[in-house]
């Protein structure tokens, strides 16, 4: 049975309307609701389903970030992960932490924990990078099953259906392998209150990037973060005829 490592990120909740800091250094995060990156919830759910199908023996949840990342790990534990590892990275270092660094941390942990399958979300909804899974697979020299919408075990491989631009694609990824979860992989479960209580007793280990021998000095500098230009609505028209006229004026419909 496989040992599964699942990576989760604490991000600003998807429903929050973000605000850019006046000094253009980033977005306001203090006092803003955070939650687990939605794609990572799907990754955790898939790991738990693997365990329920007796494909996985143990699920280890990992998160890199400040102290509050532990809340995200507790959520993963409440959903069914067995133990958690918090890689503490705070302050300035967290501001310039990139998928580049996270992939090296995850690769080291995957080896230390003897994981066979690493599941991540396809992208974090804050930096929208869509890089970590691919980079981790490269560091480990493992196969990668990106943007997965279906995963099945087939011999010593995972049969993965991927969401690609023109439709769907099926590949066979030899184990060990790294998978990134797309939206339609599954419907994540809610953590129940008894499971939230039980999660408090599950083991959570804290380490640092230094402990793992990973250099987290920035490779990319953030010059500035600004608001996008605001688009102004142009009002409404009373009926279909008026709409047709607008389309004609703009040249989309022949007069």
């Amino acid at each position: 049975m496989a040992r599964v490592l699942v990576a989760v990120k604490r991000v600003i909740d998807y429903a929050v309307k973000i605000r850019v800091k006046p000094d253009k250094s980033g977005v306001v995060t203090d006092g803003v609701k955070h939650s687990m990156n939605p794609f990572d919830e799907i990754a955790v759910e898939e790991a738990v389903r693997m365990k329920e199908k007796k494909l996985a023996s143990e699920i280890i949840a990992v998160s890199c970030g400040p102290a509050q990342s532990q809340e995200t790990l507790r959520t993963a534990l409440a959903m069914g992960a067995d133990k958690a590892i918090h890689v503490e990275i705070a302050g300035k270092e967290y501001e310039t932490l990139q998928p580049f660094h996270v992939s090296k941390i995850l690769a080291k942990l995957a080896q230390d924990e003897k994981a066979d399958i690493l599941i991540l979300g396809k992208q974090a909804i804050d930096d929208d990078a869509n890089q970590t899974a691919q980079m981790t697979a490269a560091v480990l020299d493992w196969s990668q099953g990106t943007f997965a919408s279906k995963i099945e075990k087939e011999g010593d491989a995972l049969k993965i259906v991927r969401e690609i631009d023109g439709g769907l694609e099926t590949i066979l990824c030899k184990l060990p392998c790294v998978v990134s979860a797309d939206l339609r992989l599954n419907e994540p479960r809610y953590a129940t209150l008894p499971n939230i209580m039980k999660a408090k007793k599950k083991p959570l280990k804290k380490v640092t990037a230094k402990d793992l021998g990973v250099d987290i000095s920035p490779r990319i500098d953030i010059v500035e973060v600004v608001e996008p230009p605001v688009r102004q609505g142009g009002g409404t028209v009373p009926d279909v005829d008026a709409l047709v006229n607008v389309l004609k004026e703009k040249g989309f419909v022949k007069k």
Partner: protein
Amino acid sequence: MFSAINRNVSKITQPLYLSRFQSTLVVVEHNNKNVAAITQNALGAAKQLGGDVSVLVAGTGCGPVAEILTKTKGVSRVLVADSDAFTGFVAESLTPLLVATQKQFNFTHIVAGASAFGKALLPRVAAKLDVSPISEIIQVKSPDTFLRTIYAGNALQTIKAKDPIKVITVRATAFPAEPLEGGSAKTEPAPAGDYTNSLTKFVGQELSKSDRPELTSAKVVISGGRGMKSGDNFKMLYELADKLDAAVGASRAAVDAGFVPNDLQIGQTGKIVAPDLYIAVGISGAIQHLAGMKDSKTIVAINKDPEAPIFQVADCGLVADLFKAVPELNQKI
């Protein structure tokens, strides 16, 4: 929205001393017969980086594609790797080829379109080169400074890459498409090697067939949301699409409800489009959907809820029941 920004880009000219040392490799996306449209936008971005532009065509029987690229203006070198190893274009086979190509030619930039192909491949290549990749840029400010969106397009981030090799994916809608003509490059073999990988095997594809224009490059896009109520009702939109030579897209809600296949999804986690005309039908306009379409030149919204957020970005809104308005529209145009 970014059209104003894009206009300024063309004014940026690279100092000569810089461009002399710069060389960009564009990874070509194709199906062994035709070049994917997004590669033309990637070539547009490569041109803005300045310096020499090479392209890499890897595939199985990809001669026709290489031939097209030799005729592309501004391309100085077409590297070709034709092998069964590249069946299905799996990242595990292409990465070693890209690393070998990089070792031989020492490019300063490696660029591909930010499609499913580019997004799966380039971060793997970057990790192998030990550099931090840059996703989905919307503007080149200088050879090491780029603009990209974060938080579903709700903030613009300017970043400066410190790595010696810049590995970049490009948002198609933010860069002009280079025409595949006017050039006369020669093909050369890419570095030889056995690129067969033992990690991942391509099994097959199920592509959605459509006679309509491709979603990401269509001039007109008509999208349906949860308000369409069923997949059958999308027929109304297909009828309208045929009249306007438009592509049809959908919101996540419509895809999740099973009305249409997921490759039609427009938004933060689907496709990014910026057509001349975007018609949103029965779509409320959630942040995640707006991220995929708010750079459209003209946005038209048809929704019965006057409070729907889509009306805040629409140039022209019609508050009406779509089941009455769309058939009427189909009749009148």
